[in-house]
């Protein structure tokens, strides 16, 4: 297990190193941030001054090593747009994204578990069909459309819940549900198919023959064995919820990492783009590693060769 963890850690570090080069090069290939921060009537002198002040006049190789050298100590430089240390912006935004992702994931689990299990147990009934509809809609309706509809009606016209911001618990509901619906759909389908398979297995039949209560058969014996793909899905999706909620964060004016990334990209804010990409990549790598380790806890039969 330890060897496996160390090997995966090494893999992740190599991936991050490659990613740092890719993001450094691609961020600069898309344009000059000075075209965004300097006024339209800026002179050549203004450009030269700003370039020097921001350290953009140095050779690319020097800029890259300076970026990497500082990044390993947690210093991602200063935002070209906000003129504040990027690490400060990350500290402000990452907790908001984590909180929203946790809320969305919690809501998704609360809905997907009973729905998935009931759909499997009551296969072919109205419950199953209703669950299927939830799944199809959740995976086919575009997130931005769901978000806009919720804001327009639930917040704007009916005034039931806040439209934006991260000011209160109520303000988590609409972005959380928008973000979580897709996860509900995926998790519910996965759980349903896993449960159907397990419920048809020999050991579940044996348990029933031995007179174990049906509730215990379903919620303990069957569910535990149908969980592994769900755990993988949930782990990966939590990382995705944290790192890719750009649309939801934009529509609901949620000050999270997704919005920071979006603003960084549109304003060619290299330090922010680099920091967000590396931070999100680190989160994804860490979550993947965590999920792999969790397998062994859930199912001790799983052993790692490396």
């Amino acid at each position, binding site marked *: 297990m330890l060897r496996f963890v160390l090997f995966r850690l090494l893999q992740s570090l190599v991936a991050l190193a490659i990613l740092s080069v890719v993001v450094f090069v691609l961020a600069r290939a898309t344009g000059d941030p000075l*075209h965004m921060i*300097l006024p*339209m009537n800026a002179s050549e002198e*203004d450009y030269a001054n700003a370039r020097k002040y921001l350290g953009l006049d140095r050779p690319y190789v020097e800029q890259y090593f300076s970026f990497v050298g500082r990044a390993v100590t947690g210093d991602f430089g200063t935002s070209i747009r906000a003129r*504040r240390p990027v690490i400060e912006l990350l500290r402000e935004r990452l907790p908001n994204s984590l909180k929203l992702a946790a809320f969305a994931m919690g809501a998704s689990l609360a809905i997907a578990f009973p729905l998935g299990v009931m759909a499997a147990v009551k296969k072919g009934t109205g419950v199953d069909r209703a669950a299927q509809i939830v799944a199809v809609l959740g995976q086919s309706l575009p997130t931005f459309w769901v978000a806009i509809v919720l804001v327009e009606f639930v917040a704007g016209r009916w005034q039931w819940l806040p439209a934006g911001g991260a000011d209160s618990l109520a303000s988590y509901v609409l972005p959380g549900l928008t973000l979580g619906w897709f996860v509900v759909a995926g998790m519910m389908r996965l759980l349903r198919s896993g449960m159907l398979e397990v419920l048809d297995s020999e050991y579940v039949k044996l348990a029933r023959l031995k007179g174990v209560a049906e509730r215990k058969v379903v919620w303990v014996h069957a569910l535990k064995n149908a969980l592994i793909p769900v755990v993988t899905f949930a782990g990966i999706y939590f990382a995705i919820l944290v790192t890719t909620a750009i649309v939801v964060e934009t529509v609901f004016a949620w000050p999270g990492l997704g919005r920071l990334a979006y603003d960084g990209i549109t304003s060619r804010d290299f330090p922010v783009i680099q920091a967000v990409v590396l931070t999100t990549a680190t989160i994804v790598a860490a979550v993947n590693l965590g999920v792999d380790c969790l397998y062994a806890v859930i199912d001790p039969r799983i052993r790692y060769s490396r």
Partner: protein
Amino acid sequence: MKSTTRIIVTSLLLLIAVASPAWAQAKSELTVALSSFSAETLDPALQGHNVKYYLSLMFDYLVGVTPDGQPSQAGGLASKWESSADHRRWTFHLRKGVKFHDGSDMTSEDVKFSLQRAMSKRSTTGYAGPLRTLIADIETPAPDRVVIVLKESTLIIPTYLSRSLSTEGMVLPKKYIEANGDDVFARKPVGTGPYKFVEQVVGSHIKMTAVDNHWRIGVPKYKNVTFKLVPEETTRIALLRRGEADVADVSRERVKELEKEGFPVHMRREEAIIHMWWILGPEGRTPPTKDKRVREALNLAIDRAEIAQSIFGGYAEPAAIPMGLSWAFKEVGFKVTPEMAYPYDVARAKKLLADAGYAGGFTQDVYAFQLPGFAEGKSFAEAVAGYWEKIGVKSKLIPVDYPAFRKQWVDRKAPGAVGYYNIANRDWIGTYALLEKQAYTPSKLNDTVNDPEIDGMIAQVMRQTDREKINALMRNIYTRMRSEHHGVPVVYVHSPYATSKTLGKYNPGAVMYDLFIDELARK
């Protein structure tokens, strides 16, 4: 199961009760929801005019202006100013008893320090360059007197340091910045404005709280003012409906809907000109648009009235003068005559193309992008390309974002290609500053005109000290820009700002990038 349902329903009802709209509460807060915050820096020297609308609540200018853009001795820290006979020494008399938010007195040393800081190499404000060129020295003969000594005679110094332009005229606290450093100042700015800084969450909001009594507006009407960054319009409107925002920028297409619901919508008329131009080559204009007839043909081929109606929902007016920022027209005595307006004349446009040797038309690249305050950008580019197609000019639309176009423009790597911008309307000096960059050959980087006659007139304006002669020069520049068709002025757009039903009278003014939110705080 029934009890579970009951718990869920009760929780939802509680949540809804907690989240009920804010309009039931007494208003001591003013919330402004905007689609863009531009650079989001709180240091006036690190950004230009784009950040004025929130900075002008925290900082006062040396020279104030009225909401319609006229210099005002009542609105700035200088209560009066005068110049020497040769217009090379400008003396500004400062208001006494004005204090910074940290309690220190505002003096001439602060003014000198602020100006030097605005002109420093670190500064990225819009007019740092011209000020560096103009200012030789800044003297502080008394705590309430500043003398700006110029390298050459000019009338334009007060305007450069006023609220009508960028942020160079904002007065900053010398002692506070020297004691704490630039970074601390940028995070916790201190000014003399009616509102003090409280909190900034980049990408989310900027919060300020009122001073007890401000020299300009007295006791502010609102205890707190919050600027919220809300990129999605549906969300801004929902905030307005819930009473969680008092002012919001909205798109032209939703104006009628909001007015129908009873929300007052205030128009900033002719807030920007939608102006197109051709990228110059390293040596200037390139064929086919080097030929004046081709430029005129491309102008005549566009039905401006139809664009104003169909693309901008009727909230726009046809434009006729390239780079003709209309808020300056009255000041310099310029009038757009009916003959100057471009008629929609396809037949004449085709004839002009034929006369220029392009009877079969030609192909040109058109960069298509959206801009803050110009969400219609791409459909506008498509519409114009459609008109040009009718006279045989095939436009290859290149979907990019603005920085990509700007790079092509200033690097001169795509000569003859077309781009555009919603250039903010401004007064005559603002217009002059724009011309000096975009229509003046020596400026190189941004030039779009390359006309020696225009160059000569622009050079004269800066040194001219007779206001009548300046006005005449400005009028001649406009006339020449129009007669040579140095660009494609399409429409002036009006920008709507919706307010809550209870806010009352609001005048967003006619000063570029300023919404005069502080005027709302005046009791």
